[in-house]
């Protein structure tokens, strides 16, 4: 927590230093992970043995056609799901054996989600939407408000705090969602087709925002099937039939 007397600039620096680990410190360690689903009688191998490391301040895109296991991998990375076999360590903690509530706490503290459909609460203001993760983190109303306002200003929505989602444009809604993802200062931001419901120009703005967040030191994982979007990332992981097909860095 920042000291009450700190100016916004200092608060920001303090926030960054709290989560600061040298680039290269491993955040996500996935080793030979598999996932089986039962679809009626049929058993689906969504992941057949995936190994992947993600370090702090990486900008990663996960690509693949539908059925490649891309969504399953994303759910796994987001701690929404646990692997059938294999190891998953998040910041050194073994996630594969955690209970539902422990996973919820990891998601709350470590992961910021950005969804294709924004997933904002329709009847709550931007501010209330952004405060939501902080409620589950158990922060007091004053701190919640302060942090949520800051996050909204950071995404350029300082003037839209009391607006409800239906009073905002698509791009603004996604900005609120990104503010919500940022507000608890997570280790990674996990964006699932973040521009899928936006026109290309707005999409480009959102990608620019993610770029800025990356520049500020955040770790970003984008799941997409669009090459244009993946081009923003510094590293692209391609999946096919539940296996990693390629894992390449790009400029």
């Amino acid at each position, binding site marked *: 927590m920042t000291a009450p007397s700190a100016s916004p600039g200092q608060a920001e620096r303090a926030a960054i230093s709290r989560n600061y680990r040298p680039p290269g410190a491993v955040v996500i360690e996935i080793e030979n992970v598999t996932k089986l689903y039962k679809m009626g009688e049929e058993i689906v191998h969504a992941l057949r043995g995936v190994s992947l490391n993600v370090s702090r301040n990486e900008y990663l895109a996960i690509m693949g056609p539908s059925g490649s296991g891309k969504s399953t991998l994303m*759910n796994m990375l*987001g701690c*929404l*799901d646990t692997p059938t076999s294999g190891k998953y360590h998040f910041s050194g903690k073994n996630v594969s054996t955690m209970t*539902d*509530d422990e996973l*919820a*706490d990891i*998601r*709350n*503290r470590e992961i910021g*989600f950005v*969804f294709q459909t924004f*997933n904002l*609460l329709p*009847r*709550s203001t931007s501010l209330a939407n952004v405060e*939501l*993760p902080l*409620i*589950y*983190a*158990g*922060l*007091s*109303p004053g701190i919640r408000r302060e942090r949520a306002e800051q996050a909204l200003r950071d995404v350029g929505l300082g003037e839209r705090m009391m607006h409800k989602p239906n009073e905002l444009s698509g791009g603004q809604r996604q900005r609120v969602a990104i503010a*919500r993802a940022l507000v*608890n200062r997570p280790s990674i931001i996990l964006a699932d087709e973040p521009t899928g419901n936006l026109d290309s120009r707005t999409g480009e703005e959102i990608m620019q925002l993610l770029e800025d967040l990356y520049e500020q030191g955040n770790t970003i994982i984008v799941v997409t099937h669009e090459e244009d979007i993946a081009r923003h990332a510094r590293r692209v992981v391609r999946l096919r039939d539940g296996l990693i097909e390629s894992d390449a860095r790009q400029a």
Partner: protein
Amino acid sequence: MKRLLYEFTESFRIAWTQIRANKMRSLLTALGVIIGIVAVTLMGTAIRGIDTGFQNSLALLGDDVLYIQKWPWGPVEDWWNYANRPVIKTRNADEINRIIGNTPNSLLEVAVPVSGRGSTIKVGDARVSNVYTIGTSADYAKLSAADYREGRLFNDSESTAGTAVCVLGCDVADALSPTRSIIDQTVYIDGHPFRVVGVFAKQGEFLGLFSFDNQAVLPLAAFSKYFSTKQNAELRVKVRDKTRMTEAKEELAGAMRRARGQLPGERDNFSINEQEAIRAQLDPIKKGIAFAGLFITGLSLFVGAIGIMNITFVSVKERTKEIGTRKALGARRLSILLQFLIEAVSICLIGGVVGMIVAYSLFAVVRSGAPNFPVEFSPDLVVVSMMVSIVTGIVSGFAPAWGASRLDPVVALRYE
């Protein structure tokens, strides 16, 4: 701990937004609870009213008075064993009083003979028939906790002399002389003139069967002289310490046996009655009424609860994606459970409050329209029905809320 508090307030905020967003639906659902609460509350006031009626009636008999009579209160199967018992006479009271006087540390205070019959009382053109007229001693004052609206009871000398004076129940007094005080007027009891020395304050009815305000009390000697020479009576015996009723009863049985000269081993040829006997008989009836009444009205509340459960299931279904989002943002199972439970409880509480207001209005209407109708409203009824509302909400909201809390976040997020 703090986190739970914040989640609580958040849940109430969400519940309120939801209820406002679905006004019609919430209203209709709450209506089920409203009807349930109104039914249960009104039944509660009725049961309480009946209970108070019972208590008041029993209090009229006096909780520290034993009645010696030929027949016991309550049903008897072997009536032939009672029918041949000797009649209790007024002189038995004197005998018992003598025995009490000779017993050190007696638990009994005084025995009062009471003979009674129905009479017609007239003053001028006004007449009241079927007045329960009793003859008794001046010790009657020690039995009856009743106050006097005017005047007094006859005194010892009037009692001994058999002076023609009487004390009237307030209903009799009002019927005979509605406009002015009846004190010192002469009334004709079955044709015999009596001077009125007192009027009792209002006492009420005994179980709606017998009115204590429809009495006339005369000195026993006067009663015997004009109305009955047989000296038949019942005895009312005041007990010093009402916490030792059982011992007092035994002592009185002994005294009465001595007065009657009964032999050891002989069965008592009289009955000692007390208000407890009536209470013992009435209690099961009262409980039966209460149970049946609450059960039947409880059914309507149950229907309301089913409505709440249904609407909570619908709400969970509609907001599956929201549940997924909340879980992704870090909501634990308990958070989701609380959210939907609080929503169900909030609707129930609204129903409960409105139901309470409706019930109270109905009660007020009944009270003003029919003052004698046995209903009674009390603050603890409010507390009880609020508790009932909350419990209803928790019970009926639990299954859907539990289901919501166990949803797989992946599945919930995919739900459209």
